[in-house]
C-alpha cells in the first residue's frame, strides 16, 4: 500500500501539469499520475499506481453455470476493452475471479474473501436472487460495491448494489400492455417455476391484468424447479383456452415446457405466448423450432440494430467464439464494468462511497441496448422490447417501449 508523501505529491503535480498540457493537444486518456493513489484510494482498496483489482463472482460450476457463463464472458470482455483504452484513472483492471458454484452460502463466503482479503474495488457478480440475498449482508457490512446483472423481482435497494438488469415492473407492465392491445387479449394463463422471482412477477402481472387491463386470469400455476412433466398442465391450458399464456419457467423445465407444448399441438399458430424467461441463451437448449412465433419481453435482444450493439456482438464473438450468443442478462452484465468506470471517473476516486454517490444520474448513451440512465434508486432506466422468436434462435424486435423508470417498490402491486 502506498501512502501520500511530499515527494510523490511533487511528482504527481509535475505529471499533472504535463498531462494538462498534452491533454489540450491530443486529449489523452487520463493518466494514473493525474490521480495519485493516496488520493483516489483512502479506504485501503487494492489500488496501486498501475493497477486496480476487481472481483468477478459467478457460478462457473454447478446448475447455474448454464446461465452465469454468459455474464462472466461479458464482464471479461468489457474489462478487456476498458484496459485497451487505458484502464480506469490510468490503472489497468486486474480481475480476481471466484466461483460461487451455484451454492448460495459459497457466494457469501467468496464475497467476504474478495472484500476482506483481496480488497477489490468492486465486484461484478451474483445471478440468482438467492445468491444476491446471501451476499448482500457481506457487501453492506464490509461496505463493498456490487454490480448485479439479472432481471429480478425488485423489492430491494441497497447503497452497495447497482442493479443493471430490469426490476419486475419494468419487464412486466409494458409487455402486458402491448400484448393486450396488439392481440386484444382478455384471458391470461400464468405459469412459472416455483420460487420467488416467478411468484413475485406473477403477482404483479395478475394485479395489472385485473386492475388495469380489465382482463381475467383463468389459471395460475407453479412448477417445481427441475420438473420436466407438463402433460397435465398443458391439458388444463387446452381446457381453459386462454388468449395468452404468460410464462416464467426457468432452467431445465423451460426446455421440457416448450418441447411438450409443441408436441401437444400448441404451437405459435394456435396459441399466443409471452414469456419473461427466455433469452438467446435459453433458445440454445430449447431449439428455435420449438419457440418460433412466441414472444419474449426483455430489454435487450442480440438482433438489435445499432452501431454499438453491432460492435459489441462482433467483439463478443471474436473473444468467445462465433457460435456464442448474447442474451439479455449477458448484455446487462456487460454494462457493469462500464458503469463502474464512469462512476470512478466522475468521482475521481475508487472509494466505494464516492463511487456509489457519483453513479446516479449518469447517462450511458450508447450502450448496446440503447440509452440507459442510472436512477437514484440504483436501478437503470431502460426500454422494454418485445422479440418474436425465429427458427434460427434469434428474435425480431416487434415493439419498443418508451424509457421506463425503475420502481423496485411498486405501489399497488405488492
Amino acid at each position: 500500500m502506498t501512502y501520500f508523501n511530499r515527494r510523490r505529491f511533487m511528482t504527481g503535480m509535475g505529471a499533472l501539469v504535463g498531462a494538462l498540457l498534452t491533454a489540450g493537444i491530443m486529449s489523452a486518456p487520463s493518466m494514473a499520475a493525474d490521480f495519485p493513489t493516496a488520493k483516489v484510494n483512502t479506504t485501503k482498496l487494492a489500488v496501486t499506481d498501475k493497477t486496480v483489482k476487481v472481483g468477478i463472482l459467478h457460478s462457473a460450476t454447478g446448475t447455474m453455470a448454464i446461465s452465469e457463463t454468459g455474464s462472466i464472458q461479458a464482464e471479461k470482455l468489457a474489462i478487456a476493452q476498458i484496459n485497451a483504452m487505458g484502464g480506469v484513472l490510468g490503472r489497468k483492471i486486474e480481475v480476481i475471479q471466484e466461483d460461487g458454484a451455484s451454492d448460495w452460502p459459497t457466494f457469501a463466503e467468496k464475497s467476504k474473501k474478495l472484500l476482506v482479503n483481496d480488497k477489490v474495488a468492486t465486484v461484478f457478480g451474483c445471478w440468482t436472487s438467492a445468491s444476491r440475498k446471501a451476499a448482500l449482508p457481506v457487501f453492506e457490512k464490509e461496505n463493498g460495491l456490487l454490480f448485479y446483472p439479472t432481471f429480478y423481482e425488485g423489492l430491494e435497494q441497497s447503497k452497495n448494489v447497482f442493479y443493471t438488469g430490469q426490476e419486475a415492473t419494468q419487464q412486466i407492465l409494458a409487455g402486458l400492455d402491448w400484448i393486450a392491445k396488439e392481440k386484444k387479449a382478455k384471458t391470461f394463463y400464468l405459469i412459472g417455476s416455483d420460487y420467488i422471482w416467478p411468484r413475485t412477477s406473477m403477482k404483479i402481472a395478475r394485479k395489472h391484468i385485473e386492475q388495469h387491463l380489465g382482463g381475467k386470469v383463468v389459471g395460475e400455476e407453479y412448477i417445481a424447479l427441475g420438473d420436466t412433466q407438463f402433460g397435465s398442465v398443458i391439458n388444463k391450458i387446452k381446457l381453459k383456452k386462454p388468449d395468452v399464456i404468460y410464462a416464467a419457467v426457468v432452467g431445465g423445465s423451460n426446455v421440457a415446457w416448450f418441447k411438450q407444448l409443441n408436441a401437444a399441438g400448441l404451437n405459435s399458430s394456435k396459441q399466443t405466448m409471452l414469456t419473461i424467461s427466455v433469452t438467446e441463451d435459453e433458445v440454445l437448449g430449447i431449439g428455435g423450432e420449438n419457440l418460433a412465433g412466441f414472444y419474449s419481453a426483455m430489454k435487450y435482444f442480440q438482433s438489435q440494430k445499432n452501431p454499438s450493439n453491432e460492435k459489441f456482438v462482433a467483439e463478443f464473438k471474436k473473444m468467445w467464439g462465433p457460435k456464442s450468443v448474447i442474451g439479455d442478462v449477458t448484455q446487462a452484465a456487460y454494462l457493469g464494468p462500464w458503469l463502474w468506470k464512469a462512476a470512478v471517473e466522475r468521482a475521481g476516486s475508487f472509494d466505494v462511497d464516492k463511487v456509489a454517490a457519483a453513479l446516479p444520474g449518469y447517462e450511458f448513451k450508447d450502450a448496446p441496448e440503447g440509452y440507459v440512465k442510472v436512477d437514484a434508486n440504483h436501478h437503470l432506466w431502460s426500454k422494454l422490447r418485445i422479440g418474436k422468436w425465429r427458427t434460427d434462435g434469434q428474435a425480431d424486435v416487434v415493439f419498443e417501449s418508451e424509457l421506463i423508470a425503475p420502481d423496485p417498490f411498486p405501489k399497488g402491486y405488492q
Partner: protein
Amino acid sequence: MFDYSMAEIGNIVVMQGFSGISLFSVLLLMALGLAVIFGQMGVINMAHGEFMALGAYTTVLFSQVAVSYDIVSYYFIFAIVAAFIVAFIVGYLVEYGLIRHLYKRPLDTLLATWGLSLIMQQTFRSIFGAKEVSATLPDWLLGSFQPTPDIDIPINGVFVLVLAAVVTVGVYIFMFRSRWGLRMRATVQNRIMAGAVGINTKKVDRVTFALGCGIAGVAGAAFTTIASTGPTTGSLYIVDSFMVVVFGGAASLLGTIASAFGIAQAQSILQFFMTSSMGKVATLMVIVGILMMRPEGLFASKLRK
C-alpha cells in the same frame, strides 16, 4: 366444470389419459436401469442420472453428425443403440474400477457413486460446455397425432411409450428367459452357492451393472425428445428413479412396473385437479404413507435374507 361441453370434456379425458400413460412410460424407462442395479445387486447408484445424461449427449452428438450429413430422418434409432453401447461400456469400466471394490461396504458405494456423478457432471461441462444443448429431432418425431381435430396425442410421447415397452420386454426376456438372466438371478439369491456351481459371479456383477447403465443410456437418449440435455440433467431424474424402484419393491421387475404406473396416474390426475406442485406433494404423501405400512415396497421380494 359445467362451463364446458361434453365433447370438450371427452377430449380432455382422452388427452389426460394419454398424459398419464406417457408419464408412466417415462418413469418406467428412468427406473428400469436402476431396478436392475439396485434391485439385483443392492448397489445404490447415485450416478444413475449421469448415465442417462451420457446417453443423451451421445444422441446429441449423433444428431450433430446427422445434420452435417443431412440424414436427420434416420439417425435416431442408431443413436439409441449407440447410447446403450456407450453407457454399457462406461458402466462396465466403472464397475471394474470402482464398484467391485465396495460390494462389502454398501453405504460407501453411495458416497463413491455420488462422487462419480459429480465427476461425470463436470466432465460433461468441460467437454460440451455449461449451456444446455438439444438434439435436432427427425420430423417424424415432432408434432402430434390427431385422431379428431380437437385431440392431440404427442408423437414423442408415443415414441417413449413404445421404447419403454420394448426395453421392458427386453429386460424381462434377458432376466427370465436367458442363461445370463438365470446366472444373474442365481447370484442374487445365493452368491456362495452360485459360485459353487461354477457361475463366475464377478463377471455376472459386471454385466449386470453395465446392463443397468446401458438401459439408463437408452432412457437418456429417449428423453432428448421431451426435455433438455445439460451437464446436470441427470440430477433431475435421480429422485424420481429411486422413488419408483423403492416404492415398487427393490428386487421385483413387476413391482417397478406397477409402481411407475401407480405414481404416474396419481401424479397426472392430481396435477390436473390441484396445482402442479401440490399434485406432486400429494403423490409423495401417499407414497410415504404406503411405505410406512409396507416398508419393503409394493412387491416385496420373497427370498430368504
